[in-house]
């Protein structure tokens, strides 16, 4: 399971980087989204996956009696998803604005701020 998830994360990362390097603006947004998913999965795996052991203390005990699934990474991922959602929304509105103002969706043509005149 771990190995499969690790390979999947690697795949999503490579897709994300490919899309980010693409010159189309919509592909950039997709790249940003994919990068977020890849990172979330990455945190999920690197903090060790445990199967079928919820982080619940048994009724007549004071502490955990056996290994349990760590809830902290899940909380981190939840926060990261929410933040990522906000940024994606902003980015989508931004590319819409850029497209309306410049009339192009080709990022290679948006280099006027780098030029010396």
């Amino acid at each position: 399971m771990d190995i499969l998830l690790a390979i999947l994360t690697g795949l999503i990362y490579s897709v994300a980087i490919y899309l980010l390097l693409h010159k189309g603006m919509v592909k950039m947004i997709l790249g940003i989204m994919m990068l977020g998913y890849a990172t979330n999965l990455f945190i999920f795996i690197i903090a060790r996956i445990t199967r079928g052991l919820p982080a619940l203390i048994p009724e007549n005990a004071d502490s955990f009696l056996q290994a349990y699934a760590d809830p902290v990474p899940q909380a981190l991922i939840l926060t990261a998803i929410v933040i990522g959602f906000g940024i994606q929304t902003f980015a989508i509105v931004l590319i819409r604005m850029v497209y309306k103002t410049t009339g192009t969706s080709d990022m290679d043509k948006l280099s006027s701020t780098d030029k010396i005149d």
Partner: protein
Amino acid sequence: MGSNILVSVFILPLLSAVSLLFFWGRVRTQKVIGGVFISLYLVASVIQFVFVKSSGSITLDVGSWPAGIGIGFIVDLLSAFFVLLTSVVAFLSYFYVTSSSNSSSKISVFLPVFFFLIFGLNGAFIAADLFNLYVWFEVMIVSSFVLFTLGGKRAQLEGSLKYVAINVFSSSIFLAGIGILYGITGSLNMQMIGSNLPLVENRMLVSIAVTFFVVSFGIKAAIFPLFFWLPSTYHTAPVGYTALVVALLTKVGIYALLRFFTVIFPLQGTLFQPILLVLSGFTMVVGVLGAAAQTDFRKILSFHIVSQIGYMLMGIAIYTPLAIAGAVFFVVHNVLVKTNLFLVSGLVNKLFGSYKLKELGGVYRKFPFIALLFALSAFSLTGIPPLSGFWGKYILAVAGFSANQWLPVTVTAISLGVSLLTLFSMTKIWNEVFWKPNPQVVEPNFPRQSFIIEVVKQYPGMFFSIVTLTVLILILGIFPNSIIEVCMEISNSFFHK
């Protein structure tokens, strides 16, 4: 007592931002509310600094959870000092904007976002755990996205697109790094990660995590070869809106690097020390050479930000108490000087209607006083005694040359050469903007014969900010002792635990 101070400093910008949102569109009320809150924030952060200086750091564990489980905040001397710096720059740039901007719809958006940005900066400086730091980084960059795009000019949108993309990338890497550190140390608290990290057996994974942090903070701080977003973004938006971003966002990256390489992963003797030294050398040289080629007032200044970041990174990478103190001093000096230069460029633009060196000229003849204000900051940036830049560079040079290894000594020697090139760019701005006759046939639209008094009357806030900043730079240059002592105390706290 301590935690009350911490909470009030922390909560003031948020309170302000939220109450400003209630008065959306009513600019006059908003300006008054913002003015009151920014002054309160300045006072509160001075009190916090004095308190921390006299009675040690303040810790706050939200909800009384033990440290490491709940969200924690620590205000030590470094945090308090940087919060104070933020509040001073925020205070001055607030009055700069509110007096310079005429468009009521834009200023109505600007004010709440400005306070959200301060909120994020403040949070980043006092966060005690890494994930919390990540959240504050996001608060900061989302606010800065809005500030950069505010106005919606073509150049702004183009610059912001790159800025957004690179920042999202940097945040993802940061988050992945946090994930690795949590996975191998089981904690998010910086102190705890720091004490658990030497026990980790898988050193490979540690190195990967550290690399992630270097790349991510390196993008934020704009170090070579990750700085290219900066000169293509920073010159696009109106000066007032982005003064705080320009002054402090890259320095938050430096702050994060400083924290990371002292508390979490002590830099001394690791593989990353020579890497950071080499990078800092390249940052300085490439930044200053980039500036030499530019023909836009603010673009030259933007490239200089990159170059100056190299000095701070060099201080961290040399990693002796004196060098770290020098880096902290350099941050203070650079924030004040750089903000002032940007604000002056904004004022010149207001009066002459351009940022292009080709179209500007004759400022000295019309407004010798503005030229003087620029010259003082420019000299300080170059490092001419007795101005503040001299002390920053002097401390770093002493620290570098006493390191007794060839690499730090070489990089320090390079840094001295870079100062000379800095002087070259400043001379270029001076010649083109202030000295040469104005090339425009049509006189720029300011009243004749009235000169400086008219300008002061017309833009009192802009003048107030620039003059105050110049006075601060002069004070920092002529009486650097007390600030250097604070910097030494900060860096000693990292070395003697």
